[in-house]
């Protein structure tokens, strides 16, 4: 069977054209959209690193083999994975290729006259006939004009059409989907996102080194950072006494814009961020920083100040690490701060209310090598005690001091800290405009009614009227009745 089969030479250009046509067919676009819906599912069932890094770590501990397989398919980072990106980039291209040509066509069609009146009106829907009296065509023209139909007059017939709003709305909707995708892409390419913990009374200056975490979009860098200064003057948290649930967080801050001498006092709340141009600053979390003074054996102050602790539960039981690298030998305190102290048979010290009603600092003291010079990045909330030796264990109330052979620690007081999230998203206004346009377009496209009405006066003096509603839109018969009533009124 070595028959020669004639395959038309496609060539690269032909092949490309073929793929382009396939990709931009509506069917492909819809399949891609469905695929995107399907592809979004795993990310809602498997913990995602961007939202819940702790759960991901736990996953690795519980079933490391499975976790490694999930990792291989970017299962913990679904929404930034290559396959998810591939789907939405293809959808983006497909949508553009599908919708833009249609938009051009639509604008041409909108200016064109309606198609000619069909030859045989009696076969059309809603057909009616009655005898003429001479003025019908004029009256009909007036009526069509008043009701903003576009008309085509040909001899003794009129073809009128209305309801392009439906197509216009439909195109607007699909175009605005493109705008939304564009906004999302701009945001992720040029955006900046950072976090910083600030103790009450401290100032935050927006330069890269002040941030605890800072991440840039692929096309942005440190120069994109909006410079400003925020000083936390006060922070008040209110809790419900019955349920312990938070009721209100209010931070009072002094804000200085870059280059300006004057500053203003502002209130920062959970749902009302501060705005600096495209950058917004959100109140995201809060906790306590115990203020401690650590002295060495000679009584010299080795460390003094607030140390932010990390909340662990709704009652703000917080853990933290007080590292004193300047002491000799180095000492570290593995500590927890309990705003309202109570004892629990199983867990030891716990907190029973998030407000600091009866605060206590619990700690174990370690001496040895803190490992700060090893070059391995370390958590500020934990101490690697593998090369250290425990020398004491105690708890303090504010104002109390504990002494040990290598020095002493004084729990002076405590202060709240707040976590600021700083987000620069230059694309979000496009996404918002896109969303608004999408809804308007959707409304027009779902509730617009496209229909045609024809009227003809035959050579035998009979007026024929008929109509056609696209997509079976309701309401046409009533409209035709109105027209006919108008035509027959003045006889």
């Amino acid at each position: 069977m070595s028959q020669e089969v004639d395959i038309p030479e496609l060539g690269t250009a032909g092949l490309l054209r073929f793929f382009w046509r396939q990709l931009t067919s509506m069917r492909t676009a819809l399949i891609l959209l469905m695929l995107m819906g399907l592809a979004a599912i795993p990310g809602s069932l498997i913990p995602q690193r961007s939202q819940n890094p702790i759960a991901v770590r736990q996953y690795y501990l519980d079933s490391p083999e499975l976790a490694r397989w999930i990792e291989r398919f970017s299962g913990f980072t679904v929404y930034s994975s290559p396959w998810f990106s591939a789907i939405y980039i293809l959808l983006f291209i497909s949508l553009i290729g599908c919708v833009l040509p249609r938009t051009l066509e639509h604008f041409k069609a909108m200016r064109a006259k309606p198609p000619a009146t069909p030859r045989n009106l009696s076969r059309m829907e809603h057909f009616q006939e009655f005898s003429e009296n001479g003025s019908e065509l004029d009256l009909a023209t007036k009526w069509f004009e008043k009701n903003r139909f576009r008309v085509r007059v040909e001899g003794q017939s009129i073809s009128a059409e209305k309801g392009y709003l439906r197509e216009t709305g439909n195109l607007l909707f699909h175009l605005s989907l493109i705008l939304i995708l564009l906004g999302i892409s701009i945001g992720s390419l040029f955006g900046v996102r950072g976090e910083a913990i600030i103790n009450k009374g401290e100032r935050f200056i927006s330069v890269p080194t002040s941030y605890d975490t800072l991440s840039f979009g692929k096309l942005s860098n440190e120069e994109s950072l909006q410079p400003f200064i925020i000083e936390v003057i006060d922070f008040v948290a209110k809790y419900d006494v019955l349920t312990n649930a938070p009721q209100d967080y209010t931070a009072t801050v002094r804000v200085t814009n870059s280059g300006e001498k004057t500053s203003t006092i502002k209130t920062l709340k959970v749902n009302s961020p501060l705005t600096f141009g495209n950058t917004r600053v959100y109140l995201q979390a809060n906790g306590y920083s115990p203020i401690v003074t650590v002295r060495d054996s000679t009584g010299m102050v080795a460390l003094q100040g607030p140390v932010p602790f990390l909340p662990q539960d709704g009652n703000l039981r917080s853990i933290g690490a007080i590292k004193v690298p300047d002491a000799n030998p180095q000492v570290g305190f593995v500590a927890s701060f309990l705003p309202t102290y109570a004892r629990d048979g199983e867990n030891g010290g716990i907190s029973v209310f998030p407000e600091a009603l009866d605060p206590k600092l619990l700690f174990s003291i370690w001496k040895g090598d803190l490992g700060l010079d090893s070059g391995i990045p370390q958590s500020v909330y934990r101490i690697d005690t593998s090369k250290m030796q425990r020398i004491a264990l105690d708890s303090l109330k504010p104002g109390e001091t504990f002494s040990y052979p290598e020095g002493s620690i004084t729990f002076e007081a405590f202060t709240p800290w707040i976590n600021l999230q700083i987000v620069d998203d230059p694309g979000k206004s496009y996404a918002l405009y896109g969303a608004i346009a999408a809804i308007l377009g959707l409304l027009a496209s779902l509730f617009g009614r496209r229909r045609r009405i024809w009227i003809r006066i035959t050579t035998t003096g009979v007026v024929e009227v008929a109509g056609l509603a696209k997509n079976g839109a309701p309401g046409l018969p009533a409209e035709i009745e109105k027209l006919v009533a108008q035509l027959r009124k003045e006889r």
Partner: protein
Amino acid sequence: MQTTWAYLSNNLIYAAMGVFALSFLAHAFETAWAVRTPEQSEGTEGSLKTKTLDYTRTERAARIATAMMVLGFLLLLGGAIARGISAKHVPWGNMYEFSLTGALAFTGAYLAALRKYDLRWLGLFVSISVLLTLGTAITLLYRDSAPLVPALKSTWLVIHVVAAIISGGVFLLSNVIAGAYLYLESMESRGERKAWAKRLPDLETLDQLSYRLVAFVFPLWTFAVIAGAIWAESAWGRYWGWDPKETWAFITWVAYAAYLHARVTIGWRGKRAAWLCLFAGSTFLFNYVYVNVWGTGKHTYSGL
């Protein structure tokens, strides 16, 4: 003061449950007693007696059923408002309150649609499902009235949730109608409709109706998702974060978009469209149940 309102709310909801139960009984009575078996003398072959429907006999029951439904709706509305006053926020801070408001929206959607279409046959189903929802809510999901956590204090939350709950009510109604379509379709394909089902609208009407409802609320659902995004932007610093709740809202949106396209651009009708409609609606329910109860993420608040 606060607890007085909370008690009032609970009592109103118990009262609403009683009234919905009456409505259910009246609907059941109507459905059962409208079927008339002909007198023995009429049919010569006893086994082939055809049953007919006679609604004149049950008209009063039907009126009572609808009146009870309206009354139940009003009581429930009162209960939701009292709950809102007691907690000093809109009544959708937790799963219990969501269920109340959801049942309210579902009844409201049914009553609104009833003004335009003859949907009384659905009443049996609507009353029993509202009863079950309220029963589950008050026994399993009940939480004492409590203030909102700070992130939930936002006008956009009110707007977002109102839109989402109304959409949900209408989506469910459309699902019920699509379900009825499938059931009747299979009954018809096996022969004739049973007597009690004769009064139900023809398949064509059901098919159109479930589509109309979806087309009507799809823009509202789109708006609900967008309002949620605006709220998320002001509370969490990002308008979209693929949180499980957001992800499933998106999936529901895509599923209904697929449904609309299947109908409008491909021309699906009947069985296939009804299945697709049921599928889309179940993604909404999944979001409500799974993500609220077992999910993690920013939308899951303490104590359901």
